[in-house]
């Protein structure tokens, strides 16, 4: 039997000490029964234990929320009653050919069934052993798969969506009864058979709208126990870091037209001399010197070959790793020093220019070392607005700051998730990352700064959405409506149709209340979540 260790009166905090510590009545640490050799049996045993915990929460009239690596930079994973640490439930299970749905176009070798707590690094390793790879991932590898899809984690693969967009099936636990294990997938793109669902003791719902709503669920659709991911053959990435002039960089940001850009990487051009389309394009920008060259990190997809030099020593991870926290102290004391400090630290926080590296996706986006209190904010905008939005946010930073952070831009395709924040046909994610600081008479606070960003983007008429797992002024009036139009209503309808009122409340937390997503729509028609016809 899977077992759970209870930690009463636990002060929970997230990886970057962002807010908190948050008092918690009970932290529950669930561990699988490793004596069960058959992975599906072990999976089902874990499901049974989760359901026991849910029943116990109901009996004690307490809320319940699953969480992963605590990497979100806000309180989205927190609620004060019971939190389930699920990272030890991390099975990686191959999909048998006979479990692929008869109407599916998927090759079973390109599908993998992951238990909620599998972390991205573990998934990279497991897939590599099978000659496979994720299609994309974030800038580092410590998130759990359930945590990553729940907030919409993205990288900068320009023609690929975010992590959740590789998911083709979701195994949810929405209550303590036998009927509360559900396996959901799209009717338009079925993946696995009813036999597979039966093997994990779940009822099947094939419904596109429900699936899309549950994909980025913010922890509100119950416990995600497992996900079926579509993967691909392993590939290599050739990574270049170069200076790029702001004009060329922003032209590329607005169009992603690499073919006609004057910016080219020698060796990455077609026979006619035009630029090849990269897999990944990212820009690093010092907001205090916007006329300086930007730094670009650009990667091209290559076929996998076995013998290439170990790239890890060359890989520099994200900003989180590098901005030393004494900057926060200096910033609060002497705000005029911030631009100087940021400029001085350029070599620390930007990847080193003119380095070329070859490696797998898992190697490119390798481990990060915890470095204490940091903040991160991310605005998704249409690429067409990227130059304008950069100017707006740079102005906010300069007018109301300075603040101890740097800007970056990443690019991804639109997410299919109802509340995927990367919601524009081609999305630019404009990020400001830095060290946490405390506002005082000298310097604007992070909270005030985040409000100014929203106000400025709204005033400029730029549609945007914000990363669910990062810092934002989440209490800003009407924010979610502004960002999502009717999509938030669709999400609430689906949630209300799938969950009972009691369970919807059990899976609610302050974050969902703050962003006005917790309200339950009594009488939401069950037809909303009925299985749809599979198109022939």
């Amino acid at each position, binding site marked *: 039997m899977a077992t759970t260790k209870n930690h009463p009166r636990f002060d929970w905090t997230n990886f970057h000490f962002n807010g908190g510590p948050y008092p918690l009545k009970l*932290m529950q640490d669930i561990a699988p029964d490793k004596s069960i050799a058959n992975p599906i049996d072990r999976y089902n045993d874990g499901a049974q234990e989760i359901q026991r915990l849910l029943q116990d929460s109901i009996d004690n009239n307490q809320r319940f929320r699953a969480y992963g690596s605590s990497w979100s930079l806000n309180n989205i994973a927190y609620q004060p009653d019971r939190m389930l640490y699920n990272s030890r439930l991390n099975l990686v299970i191959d999909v048998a050919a006979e479990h692929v749905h008869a109407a599916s176009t998927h090759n079973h070798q390109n599908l993998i069934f992951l238990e909620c707590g599998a972390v991205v690094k573990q998934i990279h390793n497991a897939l590599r052993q099978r000659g496979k790879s994720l299609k994309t991932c974030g800038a580092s590898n410590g998130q759990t798969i359930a945590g990553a899809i729940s907030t919409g984690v993205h990288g900068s693969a320009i023609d690929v969506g975010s992590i959740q967009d590789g998911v083709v099936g979701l195994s949810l636990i929405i209550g303590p009864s036998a009927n509360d294990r559900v396996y959901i997938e799209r009717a338009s793109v079925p993946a696995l058979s009813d036999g597979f669902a039966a093997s994990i003791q779940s009822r099947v719902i094939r419904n596109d709208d429900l699936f899309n709503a549950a994909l980025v669920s913010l922890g509100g659709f119950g416990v995600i126990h497992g996900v079926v991911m579509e993967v691909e053959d392993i590939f290599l990435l050739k990574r270049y870091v170069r200076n790029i002039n702001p004009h060329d960089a922003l032209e590329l940001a607005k169009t992603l037209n690499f073919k006609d850009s004057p910016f080219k990487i020698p060796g990455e051009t077609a026979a006619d001399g035009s630029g090849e389309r990269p897999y990944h394009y990212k820009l690093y920008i010092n907001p205090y010197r916007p006329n300086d060259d930007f730094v670009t990190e650009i990667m091209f997809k290559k076929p996998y070959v076995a013998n290439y030099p170990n790239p890890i020593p060359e890989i520099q991870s994200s900003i989180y790793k590098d901005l030393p926290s004494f900057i926060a102290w200096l910033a609060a004391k002497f705000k005029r020093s911030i631009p100087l400090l940021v400029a001085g630290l350029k070599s620390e926080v930007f990847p080193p220019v003119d380095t070329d590296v070859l490696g797998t996706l898992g190697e490119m986006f390798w481990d990060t070392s*915890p470095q204490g209190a940091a903040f991160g904010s991310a605005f998704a905008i249409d690429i067409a607005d990227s130059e304008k939005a950069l100017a707006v946010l740079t102005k906010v930073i300069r007018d109301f700051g300075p603040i101890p952070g740097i800007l970056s831009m990443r690019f991804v395709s639109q997410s299919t998730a109802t509340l995927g924040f990367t919601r524009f046909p081609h999305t630019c994610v404009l990020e400001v990352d830095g060290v946490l600081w405390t506002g005082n008479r000298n310097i604007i606070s992070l909270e005030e700064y985040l409000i100014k960003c929203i106000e400025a983007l709204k005033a400029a008429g730029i549609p945007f959405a914000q990363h669910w797992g990062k810092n934002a002024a989440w209490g800003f009036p009407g924010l979610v409506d502004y960002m999502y139009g009717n999509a938030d209503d669709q999400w609430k309808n689906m949630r209300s149709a799938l969950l009972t009122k009691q369970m919807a409340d059990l899976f609610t937390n302050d974050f969902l209340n703050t962003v006005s997503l917790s309200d339950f729509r009594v009488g939401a028609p069950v037809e909303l979540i009925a299985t749809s016809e599979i198109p022939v």
Partner: protein
Amino acid sequence: MKSIASRLLLAGILVVLLAACYSVKIRCRDCLPEKDPTNQDQATFGHMVVSVDTATKLGLFKDNAWLVKPCGDKGFYMVEMRVTFGMLMANTFRKKKIMKVKYICEE
């Protein structure tokens, strides 16, 4: 006045020196750390860390020491050896050499 200033300076230097240390960390490239959700320490967040403060006696004909630590049937995810300036000083005059070792096993 001058002597107070120089004493303060000396004290400052001493504090810096005593705090100064070196550490070497070795991390396994493809390993995963053993988990501990109760560890919310900045540097090792979420990982199960074992710390060893050790004093090793080294003789004339013995120039190394072994620490044998259990990691179940797995290996190490990370090992850190740290020697502070204070330890360095003490080690110069003592037979027993001291250092701090921290390790995280593989999951």
